[in-house]
């Protein structure tokens, strides 16, 4: 069996869901106040996207076109609820940090978008590769935004507490001179605009070359 590696790599750069396809921006802007939130959200999206793509691709000949949306929503909502229950029980800190954005994965455009545009028309293996690639691309985009926002907005990088480490890296100078606007919604939109412009410019340069 030959693996189509392009399905995996396209989601990371060429069709990055955050900067190129511009999907799932609501949670990206909402949870990117801390790096730990970004990592937790990325893990949740990876689980849901992987299994929704897998199930929808496996059931694509069983689900009639006229009822595909309710069927997909039931599958996605169930996966999100399972993720929510597991996180609540076993990683309560991440569950608590993600708050309302965790159940909102149900309506994340990336999940339904990939189900509709890819999993419903491709093989299970390709759909799994697509889900992994898109999840990595989403995680990279979200983490990049979170690192910049938290660093500029709070002067910290928040990871997960372990042993004697409280999980927070305080970055000198930035910690004493925070740009509070970066922690707020306008800062998120501003940064997203600059990063989108940067990635568009990079894309345009590549095409010209």
């Amino acid at each position: 069996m030959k693996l189509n590696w392009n399905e995996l790599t396209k989601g990371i750069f060429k069709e990055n869901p955050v900067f190129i396809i511009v999907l799932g921006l609501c949670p990206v802007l909402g949870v990117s106040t801390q790096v730990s939130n970004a990592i937790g959200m990325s893990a949740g999206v990876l689980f849901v996207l992987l299994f929704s793509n897998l199930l929808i691709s496996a059931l694509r000949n069983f689900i009639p076109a006229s009822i595909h949306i309710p069927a997909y929503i039931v599958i996605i909502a169930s996966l999100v609820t399972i993720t929510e229950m597991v996180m609540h029980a076993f990683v309560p800190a991440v569950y608590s940090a993600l708050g309302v954005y965790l159940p909102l994965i149900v309506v994340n455009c990336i999940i339904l978008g990939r189900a509709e545009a890819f999993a419903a028309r491709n093989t299970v293996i390709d759909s799994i590769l697509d889900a992994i690639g898109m999840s990595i691309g989403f995680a990279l985009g979200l983490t990049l935004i979170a690192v910049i926002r938290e660093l500029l907005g709070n002067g910290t990088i928040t990871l997960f507490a372990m042993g004697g480490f409280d999980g927070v890296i305080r970055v000198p100078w930035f910690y004493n001179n925070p740009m509070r606007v970066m922690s707020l919604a306008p800062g998120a939109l501003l940064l997203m605009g600059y990063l989108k412009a940067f990635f568009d410019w990079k894309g345009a340069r590549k095409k010209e070359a």
Partner: protein
Amino acid sequence: MTKNIRYALILLAICGVAVFFLALTNSITAPVIEEMDHQNRLKALEAVSGGFEIGEQEVVDGQPYVTYRIDLSEGGNAAGWILGLKSAGYGGEMTLVASYTPDGVMQYAQLLGHSETPGLGKKAEESWYMEKFKNTGGQQPVPTSKAMLSADDAQAISGSSVTFTAIARAIAGGSDYVKSLGGAQ
């Protein structure tokens, strides 16, 4: 007609499988969550008790913010109350516990459950947040608006006014309730 029945059966089958896996996950996670919530509540009560002895919990009915009360004592003498409070934040219901002196002055408070937005209302979980309300409710009123806070404190709650107001109203409601008890226990 036959087509519609087939569609309904397909959806029913998908829902049935979904329900099975949800029930299975719930049976594994629910006891863990319940135990964790119980431990968190005990920790919160201990944290807000201020070292006093914690009495028995009594349900409070007919109050807009207070759901239960627990008496605090020291060597058999009444030392105050711990109240279970609820309020409506930006993300829905918020629950907190707060301790008061017998004359209604808020001593310690801690957020127990909420769905506030990460990075904004969720800041209320942090210990510094509740410091704004410490020793209020007596001669010093509970700050229920940004205008009643210092510039630094107002800046710190920026972006979470709904959460702040909800907590402030619950704490003020708790203070009023304790005062209505007349200081006697």
